[in-house]
């Protein structure tokens, strides 16, 4: 199953997005990598790296980010990683993306299919 890592400056946002997604896709492999080790606001390369390792089952991992250093820290985590399956950062709304991606991944879709669904989440109309 494709893994998902949610990277936000806020631990609560990352955990909240995961909580919402789990409601629809309880079996999805999702890791919340929000905030710093002490829970303060920020992004932490080690935490993201641990998140990738935790959800990687060999089918690829997608990373959803909020903004700014979330992107740079995620890039660094990918560069520092040794081995493992493919990892990609996706430019998509973090909450909606986590939900759509988790549902898609949980039905056994391929890495490319999950990436496509996440990319389309950016254009999703709410009303």
């Amino acid at each position, binding site marked *: 199953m494709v893994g998902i890592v949610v990277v936000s*400056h806020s631990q609560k946002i990352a955990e909240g997005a995961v909580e919402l997604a789990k409601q629809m896709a309880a079996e999805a492999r999702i890791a919340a990598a929000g905030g710093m080790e002490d829970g303060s*606001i*920020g992004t*932490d*390369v080690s935490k993201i790296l641990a998140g990738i390792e935790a959800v990687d089952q060999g089918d690829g991992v997608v990373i959803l980010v909020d903004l*700014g*250093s979330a992107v740079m*820290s995620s890039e660094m985590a990918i560069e520092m990683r040794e081995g493992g399956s493919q990892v990609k950062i996706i430019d998509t709304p973090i909450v909606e993306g986590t939900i759509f991606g988790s549902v898609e991944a949980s039905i056994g879709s391929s890495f490319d299919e999950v990436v496509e669904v996440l990319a389309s989440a950016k254009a999703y109309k709410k009303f």
Partner: protein
Amino acid sequence: MATKAEVLDFIRVYADKMAEHRQELTDFDQAIGDGDHGINMSRGFKAVMEKLPTFEEKNIDDILKAVGMTLVSTVGGASGPLYGTAFMKAGAAVKGKVELSDQDVILAFEEAVGGIQFRGKAVQGEKTILDSMIPAINAIKTSITAGKSMTDALVDAEAAAWDGVEYTKTIIATKGRASYLGERSIGHQDPGATSMAYAFQAAKEVALKAGN
């Protein structure tokens, strides 16, 4: 030239400066960003100082890499990956060196700035760290080529860095949080360019003390 003791001294002096200027950097960032630059940098370098005893016996390249690794996991904001990459790239550039020649120092700075450009996908003139760092490195190269000592070159570098900081007051931010403000960012100095200028100030002070 720079010895390992001077590299360690630079890290300590710079860490002190980040603690000393914590509020000032945060105030600059509050004006045009998310108001955490001083808090983040001082937190990162506090962690570096705490971990320093575990790696200060290592080679210069491993010391610089360890500083970078610590920063990326403790700073929290964009300056973590940016300064972290800079230290890691500088370390990789001087692999196996027990002592740094002037050319090694220049190479380390060039690799560091290359790392920041790669990581931040920025160029000079976008109101970032680069606006003090690039002029400072150019000043070092010009001064060393002209036959000056590294200490004198670092004096020139610090001056160029502060000129760069002044220049950031005149331009619009197009990278980072400050870019959301557009023209309202004019008139404010960039916090990242400022914290980088303190790095050259720290390097200069260490060189002056060592008398190179």
